[in-house]
């Protein structure tokens, strides 16, 4: 009990020392402000591809129906209607659109030709260059054209069999009319709709949390040099940097939780708390392990800069590159993000934490031994 009280007292002292620093507090406040500010833009039209749509023949019913379908859909495409094909082309030229989709004046004829011959120019696609996102956006265009195409194919096929009549009645007679796919996580929860803007916030906060621990490690170099905790017995002194890292992480974790709730990104509270309860000691142990491995403050500082980039690129914060999985698995935010997404096994996470703790304990002992303590 005395040991626990001592731990709490030391932890309180170390936290108080950190909270006296204006910049640390400012970052905590900024974390919440960023979430609130980005949440304000949630309803705005963020999109990966901007498309200007134009009809060569505005009276063409099929073209108007396809255009309406594209304008109403919610996706990574931002589709706007241009007044004329020339204006759509101009939008591509001046960079206000990534692509222009110009529907042929005889869209039905083009689809019918495609059905019969396997080719038929229904849409002229205008771009400045070919890119992956633009190619993928054409899949959406094909889906929007598909009902017309499907009707055409159905009619043509049955007409081949016999002079078919009353076809429209049969088409979609057995339609299920609802979405065929439902998205779930491994925990059986529905996958939430995200926005490009808010989606990286969780990853950014997790990386920031690890960074708070790394920053506390940098402070520990200075304190060791200045002999701040010199009065403590060597055995206890060895754990002060770890406790200091934990002290830096806990307020940041609480603020991250608050920020995730503030911008409606939070998962069920139990899962959020479980992930943070795992990430806090993992971040502190990770930082302490690196500190023990780096002989000097300069090396640790430089490594921090590289790690920041590595964490942002390798962990699925902005884009899940699915690269170098063995390297990804070394980084705590990777596990935390997978756990938040319901795709990390508890056993693996506990093993990671245990391995970190063992390595850290060994590194601390080695370091103390090297120093003759």
């Amino acid at each position: 009990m005395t040991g626990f009280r001592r731990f709490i007292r030391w932890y309180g002292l170390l936290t108080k020392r950190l909270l006296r620093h204006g910049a640390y507090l400012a970052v905590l406040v900024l974390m919440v402000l960023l979430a609130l500010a980005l949440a304000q833009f949630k309803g705005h039209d963020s999109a990966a591809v901007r498309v200007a749509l134009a009809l060569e023949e505005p009276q063409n019913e099929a073209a108007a129906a396809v255009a309406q379908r594209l304008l109403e859909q919610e996706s990574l495409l931002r589709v706007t209607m241009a007044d004329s094909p020339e204006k759509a082309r101009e939008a591509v030229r001046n960079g206000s659109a990534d692509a222009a989709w110009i529907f042929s004046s005889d869209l039905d004829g083009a689809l019918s030709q495609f059905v019969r011959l396997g080719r038929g120019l229904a849409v002229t696609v205008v771009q400045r260059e070919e890119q992956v996102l633009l190619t993928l956006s054409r899949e959406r265009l094909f889906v929007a054209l598909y009902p017309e195409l499907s009707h055409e194919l159905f009619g043509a096929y049955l007409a081949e069999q016999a002079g078919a009549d009353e076809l429209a009645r049969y088409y979609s007679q057995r339609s299920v009319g609802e979405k065929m796919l439902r998205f779930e996580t491994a925990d059986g929860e529905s996958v939430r709709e995200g926005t490009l803007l808010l989606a990286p916030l969780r990853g950014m906060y997790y990386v920031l949390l690890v960074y708070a621990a790394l920053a506390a490690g940098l402070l520990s170099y200075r304190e060791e040099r200045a002999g701040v905790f010199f009065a403590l017995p060597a055995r206890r002194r060895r754990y002060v940097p770890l406790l200091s890292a934990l002290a830096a992480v806990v307020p940041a974790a609480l603020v991250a939780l608050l920020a995730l709730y503030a911008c409606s990104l939070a998962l069920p509270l139990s899962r959020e708390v479980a992930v943070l309860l795992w990430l806090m000691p993992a971040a502190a142990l990770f930082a302490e392990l690196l500190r023990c491995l780096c002989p000097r403050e300069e090396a640790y500082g430089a490594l921090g800069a590289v790690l920041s980039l590595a964490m942002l690129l390798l962990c699925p914060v902005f884009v899940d590159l699915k690269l170098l999985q063995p390297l990804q698995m070394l980084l705590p935010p990777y596990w935390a993000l997978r756990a938040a997404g319901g795709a990390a096994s508890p056993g693996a996470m506990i093993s990671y934490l245990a391995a970190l703790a063992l390595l850290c304990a060994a590194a601390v002992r080695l370091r103390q031994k090297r120093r003759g303590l």
Partner: protein
Amino acid sequence: MRGAGTYLKLQLKRALRLLPWMLGVTLLLLALAALTALLLRATRGSEDDARVPVQVGIVGDLEDDHLGDALKLLEKMDFTRFSLHMQPMAEEEARAALLRGEIDGYARIPEGFVSALARGEHRPVVYVTAQSGADLAAQLTRQLAEALSELVLETENAVYGAQDYAADHLPDKDADELGTKLALRFMLRALDREKLFALELVEGEASLSFAAYYLCGVFVLFLMLWAIAATPLCAGRDRELPALLRARGLSLAAQTAADFLSYALLMLLALLLTGLLALPLLAHWSIRIPELADACAPRLLGGAVSVALMLCAVSFLLFELSSGTVGAVLLQFFNALLQGLLAGCFYPASFYPAALRRLGEALPAGLAMTRLRALLLGQPDARAAGAVWAVTLLAGLAVWLLRCGRRERL
């Protein structure tokens, strides 16, 4: 004057002590990048097959032949940068593989899925996936899957419609065979879908190539993150030292200038040496940046230095604003994240709503991106260049004023 020279020399010495560490770590970073490239080449094979494999498990009722054909078709469809690999497996096996990160997700086909569809009943397929923070890829995958499901639904409408029609009007035909043949025709047309479009490439206002855009983004992000490596030089300084030095005749302006010069020189040297290391590597990996070859080298170099100085001045100001090491490091990191996000270093800024785009462009990182873009495209950029120098001077002035204010308090 002599005091100022001595002080500058001392600060330069302190700064240069960090250089080997920064370069060592940069080498480590480049080695990491090289390793990534090598592994990518090794795992993806030739350039012809440079598509990202998407592994999908299929669990549940797979007994229907139509479903098997549809899955084969999906594997054959060309998704440009993705190749779809589907493996039938048991649900427990699929779940374990998802948790281990071996598959991207799995689709759970409900019992009697195809026969239910034929009766017009709705039994949705559940796609189980990890909900990661990286939403761009996740959203793309989801939208692609939704697009495919819309295609399948529409095809089913036609195929079952044809079977019903045959049952009512064509007694001499086998309705099932008719449906299968129509489904096959749909598949052929889906594979030919690109033939519906005529692609027209137009010359527009000059814009950066993808590689050049990300070169600018990485340049700006690097400089902001490198400030962290300079923490031992700039953070946690003795606040009374400037007053003491001033009492010895070294003005605050001279101290500020010397501190900034030493910090900026460290960053510029690190940048130059990294550039010298990285450019041959880019050439070796055949990453072509045509804008670099066409740009006027002295103008590009001068512009890059001015941008680097501005970003250094901003991080120098942040160091001055933060009182402790932990706060300083976190503030630098947060600054890099925030500015990098808004200025388009991670996602292109064009993805964002207009108001946020304008905000991003007004930030120092946004100004840096604008200036670098203009330099690479060889466009006139007097306004951006003026703004870059103005921010540099303002940040320097702010540091000097902060130090003056602190002196008053002492």
